[in-house]
C-alpha cells in the first residue's frame, strides 16, 4: 500500500465538504451506490484480487491520513480504487478515462 494520494482520486472530493473530527453524522442514510460498492468489495475479495481485511486496514490507514478530508462513507470506494491502482490492476489513465465516460453517460440529455 502506497501512501501518496492519486490525483484522479483527489479530484473526487468536493472542496466545500471536508470531513470534521468526531463521530460522523449519526443519522445519514446510505445511498444506493454504497451497497453496490460493498458488493464490489466482496467480489474483489471473493475472487482473490483484494482481500477484505487488507482493504479494511488500508481504509483505516489511508482514511485517517492520505484521504483524511474525504467523508467516511467514501472510504471504501476511494481506498479500493487506490489499492487497485497500487497493484496495477487498473491504471490512472484508464480510471480517468472511465470516470469521464461515466460522467458523460449519466448527464447526457
Amino acid at each position, binding site marked *: 500500500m502506497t501512501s501518496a494520494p492519486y490525483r484522479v*482520486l483527489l*479530484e*473526487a*472530493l*468536493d472542496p466545500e465538504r471536508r470531513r470534521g*473530527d*468526531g*463521530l*460522523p*453524522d*449519526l443519522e445519514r442514510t*446510505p*445511498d*444506493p*451506490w*454504497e*451497497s*453496490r*460498492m*460493498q*458488493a*464490489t468489495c*466482496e*467480489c*474483489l*475479495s*471473493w*475472487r482473490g*484480487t483484494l*482481500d*477484505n*481485511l487488507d482493504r*479494511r*486496514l488500508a*481504509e*483505516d490507514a489511508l482514511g*485517517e491520513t492520505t484521504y483524511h478530508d474525504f*467523508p*467516511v*462513507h*467514501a*472510504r471504501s*470506494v*476511494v481506498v*479500493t*480504487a487506490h489499492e*487497485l491502482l497500487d497493484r496495477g*490492476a*487498473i491504471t490512472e489513465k*484508464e*480510471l480517468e478515462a*472511465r*470516470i469521464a*465516460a*461515466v*460522467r458523460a*453517460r*449519466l*448527464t447526457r*440529455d
Partner: protein
Amino acid sequence: MSQTHEHDHEAHAPIQSASQISEFEVLEMAVRELAIEKGLFSAEDHRRFSEWAESIGPSGGSKLVARAWVDPAFKERLLADGTEACKEVGIDWLDPTGTGTPSDYTYFYVLENTPQVHNVIVCTLCSCYPRPVLGMSPDWYRTPHYRRRLVRWPREVLAEFGLHLGPDVEVRVHDSNQKSRFMVMPMRPEGTEGWTEEQLAAIVTRDTMIGVALPKADWTATSSPSAG
C-alpha cells in the same frame, strides 16, 4: 464504449443533472466497470452480491428480537444457535455464495441484555459487523474514533449516544476479532405489554442491536410502520 447491461435498474434510471450525481457514485461505477472488463470478477458475481447487499437491513435483526420477546422457546433457540434460528425469519448466513460472504462468516451469536449486563459490540481490528441481520454498518461504527475508544472508554462513548448506565450494570464490550459475529438483544421496555411482534420490531432499531441505544416504547424505527 459499451454500457454495461447487468443492472437493468440503472439503464432505465432517470437521467440526473451533474450536481445530483456525486463524484463518488461516478467513481464506484468506473471502478466496477473496469474491474469487470479486466476479469477481476464477473457481472454475475456483482449482481449476486449487490442483490444480497440490497436485501439485508436491520429489519431482520428487529424481527429476531421481537420474536424472542414474545416467544420464549424461540428465544432459547436463538441464544443456543443464532445462525440456525435466523432461518426462521428468512435470513440465511450462507447467502449469497452458499458459504456466506468473505466478510461475515457463519458464526452468529446473540447477546442477551439483562438488568445486570449491558452488551455492546465493536471490531477493533476491521469493523466486522453482523450484516445479514443488521445490513451495512453505519459510518461511525467503522471509524477508529469509535473502535479505539469503545474498548477503552465504553461508558464515555455510550454517553455520546445519550446512553448512561449505573455502576451496578456491567458494561460488557464484545470485540469481534475472529469469525464470530454478534448482535445485542436489548431488554423489552416497560409499556409494551400486549404489543404485536410487528409493533415490537418497530422499536428495535439498529443502534439498540449494536448496544449504543435502548429501545423506547414511545419511539419507532421508521416513520411509516409498513416500511422495512
